[in-house]
């Protein structure tokens, strides 16, 4: 992985390499380098499979992190590319022409995080949610509990027990 990073760094301005496991690492990079780097990885280094495309909401920093996880099957290794986007009016170039499956991920990200991917097929159509009116539900400023309490009737009398304490009280009431 370090060797790959060195070779890529010679061509692209890349951030630090985070090695999670010998066969899994992450690189952060600027959004303008994503497409050339994806092409380079796919055609020169055997990363032919897009495993997933997902997002993290770093609300404190005011940005979304997109993670493009690629797999090199022959080399049995995974590489994640992280791209940071401003949270305000988040929008990213689509990569559905490189991997058609990306269109599905992009639809999901559009619906759940509100990140736009202009020109991605079907990105403006509803995907999983039906008739959703609130802000996208995976954004961290969306208050799930409050939403559930306001929108769904609750049955009174629901109690929550801490499993560890409950088991101790039930099974060993005398001991600590």
């Amino acid at each position, binding site marked *: 992985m370090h060797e790959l990073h060195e070779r890529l760094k010679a061509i692209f301005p890349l951030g630090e390499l985070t090695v999670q496991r010998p066969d899994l690492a992450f690189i952060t990079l600027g959004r303008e380098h994503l497409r050339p780097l994806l092409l380079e990885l796919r055609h020169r280094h055997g990363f032919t499979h897009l495993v997933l495309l997902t997002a993290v909401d770093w609300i404190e920093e005011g940005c979304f992190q997109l993670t493009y996880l690629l797999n090199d099957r022959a080399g049995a290794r995974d590489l994640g590319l992280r791209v940071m986007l401003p949270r305000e009016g988040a929008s990213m170039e689509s990569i559905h022409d490189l991997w058609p499956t990306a269109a599905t991920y992009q639809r999901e990200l559009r619906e759940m995080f509100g990140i736009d991917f202009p020109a991605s097929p079907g990105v403006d159509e509803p995907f*999983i*949610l*039906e*008739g*959703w*009116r*609130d802000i996208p*539900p995976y954004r961290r400023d*969306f208050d*799930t*509990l409050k*939403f*559930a309490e306001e*929108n*769904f*009737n*609750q*049955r009174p*009398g*629901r109690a929550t027990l801490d499993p560890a304490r409950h088991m101790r009280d039930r099974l060993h009431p005398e001991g600590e």
Partner: protein
Amino acid sequence: MKEELEKRVVKGPDGVEFEVDPLRDYYCQSAPTVMPPAYIKIVEELFNWARAESIWILGFGTGCGAIEMRPLMTPRFDAYRYGIQWRPTPRQANLFVISGYLSVKTLKRAIRSYEQMQNPKYVVGLGSCTINGGMYWDSYNTIKRLDDYLPVDLYITGCMPRPEALLAGFQELKRLIRAGQAEGANRYAEQFEWYKANQKRVIHDWDMPDYNW
């Protein structure tokens, strides 16, 4: 509203053009009615005995609990020996087992399926999720109490209930039916407006007729 539900002009094979309004033309508009009991008690009891002995479950699985139906309908637990069978379509079924959490999207399909079932019909709620939301109590996407949206005749507790619990539940349901207490479908007809109001409060893109039996 979906495109296929919009009013439109269609040209028939004979060249005649006519207007189609799918919501009005394809579905029944009248609300369900209460089914009164038979004219004398002993006949009604005979009916109830027969109803209790022919339970046909709609093969519609929601949530995790649907996985417990497979061992039930296969020789390991063999629910068929109790006169209980599974059916592929709502028209052929009279018991709807809501087998776990219902997302709002699934609720819409569950309502349609329930309304397409013929009377007499029953609903059983399986697992904590149907009772009070279970572990999805704070989810943005699942309803928390099933009996606000569909008339539940019986709940089976557990997360998830084992097949034995379901068998016990079915025996209990039979007892309720024989005692003439499984009146969910009539409750649905009586309080139709209330159920519809609850349903529409969570289903925002209501693009079906109010009753599509």
